[in-house]
């Protein structure tokens, strides 16, 4: 074990070293800082770092706590007191959080050290991180490609070994899709499993906080720390939290896995399809029974999502008005001028588009045709999943129909960008949990690009989903592959 190899470790392996006193929490911070300095100029994962504060926390760290001395990167839409929280938006430039999100409080109580904030699509609206007003984040496997989004900074940081793990948020796939495109593990818990107090709200009936990690076991370790009830978030479920890590095993006997026939759409990359088929075979050889299931309302999911999510966003983002915090237009004539110009200058195009669409679908005369109808179709989608989970333990699909695409390739056509969310979006509408894990590579232009396999589970069944994902992961080597930029650093 050399210093160069340390950043590639999983949380579980890092903890073993920390507990055997082979490395100190302080040394871990120093090594991590060196790695970030080595690669982040090219990756662009971080928007801000506070390594001095991290070092102080590391000096006090108790390595026997569940995440004692483990640094965790945080998507820059989750409030960490005293640190910036830009949400990737000019409208929050210069803002400093005046309180801690519940997940930050819980991570710290478990001994973890939040040390830096990662890039994202502005207010988590996007699938490529290109909508950030702050920085460009690049895919560690091919620097000319996107890392996915909206939690693209978190995904790229973990993939490039400049974070051991990170928190993200997932409203329509924003944890799972960047995890898939960056070749790591990303987990969206059940709606309400993790408190959202301190997560800047995008679409309140869909948003959920979750981890991006190198292994499924690391997801379990972070979920053990952050899941659970919170009086500060009325949607945080008051249900017991099992020990997710204790239940991980290696076989899939007795597990029933469903292949939704509506997910065999045109437009799935041939190599992606082949990798998913191979993964299904692999899980079958581990003892799983594979059956076909039907989710007939799938074709409506994207349409429902872009009505409900934009409607909720138009209300949530009304608070950014230039009065109490953030950016304010110069020399406003009056209040209307202050609001109109602050929001014109402060928001980027995707956020403006979504606020306008959301305002429209909620407006008098159109509410029933769009918003109410979408809520009803959402119920159909929910019922589809309830029925499917009466037959199977989990559903399998690709996380994304395509591997990472080129920077700039899709920005001009928002609808095409939205359509790529087909496999992830329904889970948010139904409130269920889902994970993306590495399951192979596509070869494009001399680069290996990672492929993600998605497993969806019913509400509050995260323990079982993690078991299934872990059993598959441990039977493969996909999660051990590191991108060229990270292996170059280890050899340096």
């Amino acid at each position: 074990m050399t210093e160069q190899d340390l950043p590639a470790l999983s949380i579980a392996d890092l903890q073993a070293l920390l507990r055997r006193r082979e490395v100190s929490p302080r040394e871990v911070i120093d090594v991590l800082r060196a790695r970030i300095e080595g690669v982040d100029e090219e990756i662009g994962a971080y928007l801000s770092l506070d390594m001095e504060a991290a070092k102080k926390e590391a000096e006090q760290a108790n390595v026997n706590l569940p995440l004692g001395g483990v640094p965790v990167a945080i998507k820059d839409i989750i409030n960490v007191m005293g640190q910036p929280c830009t949400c990737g938006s000019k409208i929050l430039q210069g803002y400093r959080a005046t309180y801690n999100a519940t997940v930050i409080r819980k991570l710290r109580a478990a001994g973890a050290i939040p040390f830096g904030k990662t890039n994202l699509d502005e207010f988590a609206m996007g699938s490529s991180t290109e909508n950030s007003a702050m920085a460009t984040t690049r895919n560690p496997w091919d620097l000319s490609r996107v890392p996915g989004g909206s939690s693209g900074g978190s995904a790229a940081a973990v993939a490039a070994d400049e974070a051991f793990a990170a928190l993200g948020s997932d409203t329509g796939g924003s944890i799972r899709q960047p995890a898939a495109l960056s070749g790591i593990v990303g987990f969206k818990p059940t709606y309400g499993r993790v408190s959202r107090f301190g997560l800047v709200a995008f679409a309140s009936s869909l948003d959920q906080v979750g981890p991006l990690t190198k292994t499924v076991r690391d997801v379990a370790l972070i979920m053990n720390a952050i899941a659970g009830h919170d009086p500060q978030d009325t949607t945080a479920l008051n249900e017991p939290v099992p020990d997710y890590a204790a239940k991980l095993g290696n076989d899939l006997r007795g597990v029933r896995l469903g292949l939704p026939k509506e997910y065999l759409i045109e437009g799935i990359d041939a190599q992606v399809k082949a990798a998913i088929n191979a993964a299904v075979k692999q899980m079958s050889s581990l003892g799983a029974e594979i059956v076909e299931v039907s989710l007939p309302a799938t074709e409506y999911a994207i349409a429902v999502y872009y009505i409900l999510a934009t409607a909720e966003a138009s209300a949530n983002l009304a608070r950014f008005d230039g009065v109490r915090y953030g950016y304010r237009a110069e020399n406003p004539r009056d209040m209307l001028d202050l609001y109109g110009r602050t929001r014109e200058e402060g928001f980027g195009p995707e956020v403006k588009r979504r606020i306008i669409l959301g305002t429209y679908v909620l407006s008098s005369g159109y509410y029933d045709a769009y918003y109410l109808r979408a809520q009803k179709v959402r119920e159909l989608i929910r019922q589809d999943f309830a029925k499917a989970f009466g037959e199977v333990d989990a559903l399998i699909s690709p996380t994304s129909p395509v591997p990472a695409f080129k920077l700039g390739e899709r920005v001009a056509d928002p609808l095409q960008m939205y359509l790529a969310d087909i496999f992830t979006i329904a889970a948010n509408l139904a409130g269920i949990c889902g994970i993306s894990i590495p399951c192979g590579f596509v070869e494009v232009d001399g680069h290996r690009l990672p492929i993600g396999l998605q497993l969806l589970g019913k509400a509050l069944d995260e323990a079982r989903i993690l078991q299934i994902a872990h059993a598959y992961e441990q039977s493969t080597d996909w999660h051990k592959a590191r991108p060229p930029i990270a292996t170059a650093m280890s050899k340096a």
Partner: protein
Amino acid sequence: MAKTSTLDVAYVAKLARINLTEAEAKVFQQQLDDVLHYVEKLRQADISDVEPAAHALPVFNVFREDAPREWFTAEQALSNAPRKANGLFIVPRVVE
């Protein structure tokens, strides 16, 4: 491209308190017309016996004790204000 929806981007942007340049309004108009055209497919769904789902999970009437607790000081609440004075947020004159 011909306008295919009833959405008037310039008007709705005003409702949403976002100033737009004419060029921006024109681009958004086409992009959002495309999106609205796409969501038309929801008309095909049979929703005759369906209750709307506001949330995915059946959680109702969540209460907590209405007890005072430590919270922001006025100073903290004002710490990010673009303009402030005398413990207040300063905005342009509203009443003549």
